[in-house]
């Protein structure tokens, strides 16, 4: 690991900010991926992209909201869309560890936990 994933993410966002041209942006991303591969940091790629997305969302005043459930649910996004801004990115994620219920995570920073696991923990 040559650099920390946060350094990569900030560098990528900064480079992308410098141009509005989509072709140029595509080129920057390709070069960036090449650099990561060259530095043998491919394993950090997911973290880098997540953190870069977070920076971009923040700049644009958007939130990344993850709705975690233990099983697939119907119309979950639609049910919750009305409570958030239209610009917010809402994602669904299956997490069997929560056992049942729902966990809402905002920008990986704060959460609203309505999971069954949380209820069990409260009993401890």
């Amino acid at each position, binding site marked *: 690991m040559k650099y920390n994933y946060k350094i990569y993410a900030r560098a990528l966002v900064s480079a992308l900010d410098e141009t509005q041209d989509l072709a140029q942006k595509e080129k920057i991303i390709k070069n960036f991926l090449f650099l990561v591969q060259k530095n043998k940091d491919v394993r950090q790629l997911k973290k880098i992209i997540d953190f870069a997305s977070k920076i971009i969302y923040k700049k644009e005043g958007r939130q990344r909201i993850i709705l975690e459930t233990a099983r697939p649910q119907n119309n979950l996004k639609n049910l*919750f869309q009305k409570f958030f801004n239209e610009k917010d990115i809402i994602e669904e994620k299956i997490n069997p560890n929560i056992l049942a219920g729902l966990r809402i995570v905002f920008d990986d920073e704060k959460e609203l936990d309505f999971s069954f696991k949380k209820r069990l923990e409260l009993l401890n």
Partner: protein
Amino acid sequence: MKELIEALGIDWKLLLAQTFNFLVVLIILRVFVYDQILKVLKERKKKIEEGIVKSEEAEKRLKEIENLKLEKIKEAEKEAKELFLDSEKKAREVEEQMLLKAKEKENEILAQAEIISQNKIKESENLAYQNLKNLLKASMLQLLNLKPEAIDEVLISEAVESLKKQKNEI
């Protein structure tokens, strides 16, 4: 008179000779013995007087000794009485202290017993509470296994309600 002297058988010559002898003896005694006897008598008198004085002195001393003895006995009695009172007082103090200590110890033991009792009660309560929680957990898990979708529905509805409430507050 002559007749009476004759009747009594007194011989003048013999009487004179005897008188002379008596005087001679008297002079000899006066010169050689009287002073010696007088001296001896004086010495004896002196000795007796000295003896009497000494005896009186001894008696006086004896009386003094007796008085001193009585005084000492009184003093000793007084001292013994004081000692007795003092030791009695000390014994009372020691007794009071012992009682006080015993009371303190008793209070301490009672406090400890109270703490132990409270702890036992608390432990029992905790155990009961823990058992209840475990039972509740087991029931909840059983329910989860039986109807996971129903629990999902309830908890998701709860989340929706909570978000609605938050939105209304804003």
